[in-house]
């Protein structure tokens, strides 16, 4: 079987991913382009004797080699040399889309053009003579619609046909005189640096040399000769080359457009413009946005929580089965502990994120696919521009208050690499739900009179540190990058159910495979640290010994004991385990879950009834989003409470909480950052920033309070 590599190229928001989904089904692989934060999607399709490999390139407006997306695209097209470019074009927005098409033709790769969103064009009364367009562009044009799978089979057939014919016809569609200049440049390259012609397509080379945008060093003579041509063009056309090239391209586009497109009715009332009158309303726009964000938050966490509980139950059943199995072969205690806590515990850490991430990805796919996310950026730009961010950062940051892990993955909606990095580094400072349980416990011991105020102050410190970190990074790290905000507001569209589910599924799969492996491995490692030597006293394990050495670091913060240090170590894995770890270190008792011995059938029925219960809870939670429900009061361990009362003063307790708030939230977040930013460097930077700021702020807080209270 031979492989045909097809690269999907097109503007953002033209339904490229949806088309890929329609062609290849659910089997889309999600990853990252090497070295950058841009998402990479690949899919395979068997057709006749071929395997067609589709590579979805990032959405771009031009081939200018400036943005990350453009660089990734050009790099792939020139270096990997795909067999065919599949240019996906929005049939309802042809002028701007064809501008990229004209540029793609300059790359001299066989091309097929998909006139996508055809159904909407028909609905809007736009009549496109695509056969004529085919002649004018010298490449096949096929109307498609991912929504009702229109034209998909024909498209695939055409791709194979183009591959078998292996022909490329270059249209020379610029002004004849200008075409002559391009030929002159090519001749110059032949004379001075012919090696360039092996690397770059002729037309692309000539144009980028004239524009001065080619990333190659040239001999002085060649550079001078090209400059001469530039001057000649300038005096002939009375404008500089760059402007002229853009105008020539648009000239071609408009000429094709006017020859092939007819609108039956002029200016039908566009539903997108009407919807924007509501969603972007000068005074109601922001309140509507805040309401929607609140809804996203509630749905993400409330829809997923019953299933998280259910998965918990499934795991405990599996662990009880495993333990009985181990018992029956008389396995030693240490092995039982390792399997139950190390291995199954690790699996649990990964699995609990699956429901919340799946829900989040569904919501994100809807927000992105519908076009609303761009409106969020528009509305909040005024407030986030100061921090060097756009409004798109708002949703991830807010989700951070629920859980940092989905928050990091929610930065998928941010295209700008710089904004994405900044937002990701800010997220860990957003105090998540797991931290709140620790706060609540401490506050109930030390600050019974003003619980709310103390917890509120912690949230506020988190936000202030995040803002400060953003300002500092902007001032000293990203200083070279200039800021502007020019963004398309795509038409509102209803994403298909299929697309939403498939996208969410591929992304969750990528999480389980990548981050999941890491988190699992680390949790096994942590088991060793806390349990070896096995059966040793609580202050003789590896972790306790290391903590005794490290504790001195926390001396200036008011809590330089090995127990506090070891608790912070455990908190690095996940904040959920801090309290149970503290019980272990301070009281020496493991807060054991009741272990039941279940037969196989009992386990199954437990899992089954748990699932039914989860679905009932889902409905209850949905009702709760819009109604009023009372928060359940948590029960705290009495022994631990008195031990903590002994070990901390109110001031050192507050300092401890500040540290707990600001340092790395959990392993899962760490690996989410690695996966989403596609970089170990930023992962370590994030950990370093969190620890440093945690130490500094706790130090300041502790010493201020100690001296002034």
């Amino acid at each position, binding site marked *: 079987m031979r492989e045909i590599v097809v690269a999907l190229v097109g503007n953002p928001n033209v339904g490229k991913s949806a088309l890929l989904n329609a062609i290849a089904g659910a089997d889309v692989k999600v990853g990252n382009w090497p070295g950058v934060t841009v998402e990479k999607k690949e899919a395979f399709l068997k057709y006749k004797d071929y395997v067609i490999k589709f590579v979805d390139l990032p959405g771009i407006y031009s081939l*200018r080699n400036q943005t990350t997306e453009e660089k990734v695209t050009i790099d792939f097209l020139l270096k990997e040399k795909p067999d065919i470019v599949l240019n996906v074009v929005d049939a*309802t927005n042809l002028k701007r889309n064809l501008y990229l098409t004209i540029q793609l033709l300059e790359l001299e790769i066989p091309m097929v053009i998909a006139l996508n969103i055809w159904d909407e064009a028909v609905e809007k009364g736009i009549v496109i003579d695509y056969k004529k367009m085919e002649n004018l562009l010298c490449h096949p044009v096929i109307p498609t619609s991912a929504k009702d799978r229109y034209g998909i089979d024909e498209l695939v057939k055409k791709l194979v046909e183009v591959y078998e014919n292996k022909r490329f016809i270059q249209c020379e569609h610029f002004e004849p005189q200008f075409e002559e200049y391009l030929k002159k440049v090519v001749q110059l390259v032949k004379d001075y640096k012919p090696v360039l012609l092996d690397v770059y397509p002729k037309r692309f080379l000539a144009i980028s040399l004239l524009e001065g945008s080619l990333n190659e060093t040239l001999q002085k003579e060649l550079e001078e000769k090209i400059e001469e041509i530039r001057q000649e063009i300038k005096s002939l056309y009375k404008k500089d080359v760059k402007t002229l090239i853009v105008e020539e391209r648009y000239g071609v586009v408009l000429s094709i457009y006017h020859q092939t497109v007819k609108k039956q009715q002029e200016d039908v009332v566009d539903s997108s413009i009407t919807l*924007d009158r509501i969603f972007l309303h000068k005074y109601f726009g922001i309140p509507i946005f805040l309401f929607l964000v609140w809804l996203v938050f509630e749905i993400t966490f409330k829809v997923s929580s019953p299933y998280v509980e259910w998965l918990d139950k499934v795991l405990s059943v599996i662990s009880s089965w495993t333990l009985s199995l181990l018992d029956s072969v008389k396995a030693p205690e240490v092995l039982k502990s390792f399997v139950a806590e190390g291995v199954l515990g690790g699996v649990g850490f990964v699995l609990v994120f699956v429901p919340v991430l799946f829900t989040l990805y569904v919501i994100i796919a809807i927000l992105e696919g519908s076009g609303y996310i761009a409106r969020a950026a*528009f509305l909040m730009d005024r407030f986030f521009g100061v921090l060097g961010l756009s409004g798109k950062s708002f949703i991830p940051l807010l989700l951070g208050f629920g859980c940092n892990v989905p928050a990091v993955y929610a930065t998928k909606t941010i295209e700008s690499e710089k904004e994405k990095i900044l937002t990701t580094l800010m997220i860990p400072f957003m105090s998540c739900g797991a931290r709140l349980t620790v706060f609540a416990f401490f506050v109930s011991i030390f600050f019974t009179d003003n619980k709310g105020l103390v917890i509120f102050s912690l949230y506020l410190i988190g936000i202030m540190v995040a803002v400060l970190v953003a300002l500092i990074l902007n001032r000293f790290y990203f200083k070279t990058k200039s800021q*502007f*905000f020019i963004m*398309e*507001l795509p038409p509102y569209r209803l994403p298909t159910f299929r697309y939403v589910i498939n996208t969410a599924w591929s992304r969750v799969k990528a999480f389980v495979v990548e981050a999941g492996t890491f988190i699992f491995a680390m949790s096994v490692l942590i088991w060793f640290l806390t349990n070896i030597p096995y059966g040793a006293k609580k202050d003789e394990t590896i972790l306790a010994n290391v903590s005794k050495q490290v504790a001195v670091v926390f001396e200036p913060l008011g809590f330089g004991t090995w127990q506090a240090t070891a608790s912070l170590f455990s908190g690095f894995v996940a904040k959920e385990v801090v309290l149970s770890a503290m019980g272990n270190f301070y009281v020496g008792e493991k807060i054991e879950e009741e272990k039941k011995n279940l037969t196989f059938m009992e386990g199954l029925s437990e899992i089954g009834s748990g699932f039914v219960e989860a679905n009932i809870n889902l409905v209850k939670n949905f009702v709760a989003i819009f109604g009023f429900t009372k928060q359940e009061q948590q029960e705290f361990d009495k022994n631990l409470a008195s031990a903590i009362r002994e070990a901390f003063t109110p001031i050192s307790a507050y300092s401890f909480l500040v540290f707990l708030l600001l340092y790395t939230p959990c392993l899962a977040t760490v690996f989410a950052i690695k996966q989403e930013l596609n970089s170990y460097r930023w992962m370590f930077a994030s950990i370093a920033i969190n620890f440093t700021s945690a130490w500094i702020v706790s130090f300041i807080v502790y010493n201020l309070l100690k001296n002034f209270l």
Partner: protein
Amino acid sequence: MKTLKDLRPGEKAKVLAVEGCEEVKQKLYDLGIIPGEVVEILQDAPFGGPIKIKVHDYCLALRRKEASCILVEESK
């Protein structure tokens, strides 16, 4: 000289040139804001936020700072 920033929602204008803002000039060009093209201001965000314009057949958002680099002539 009038710029896009001086227009109010509902007004239309013809682009004459893009001046200043060298770094965004090419980007604006690529997005179809070229001399001779007619653009229409559709909406503006509160508190001096970005504006929403229509160019060719689609909508574009940009900050007022960028809008002030687009020289225009009011079209009737």
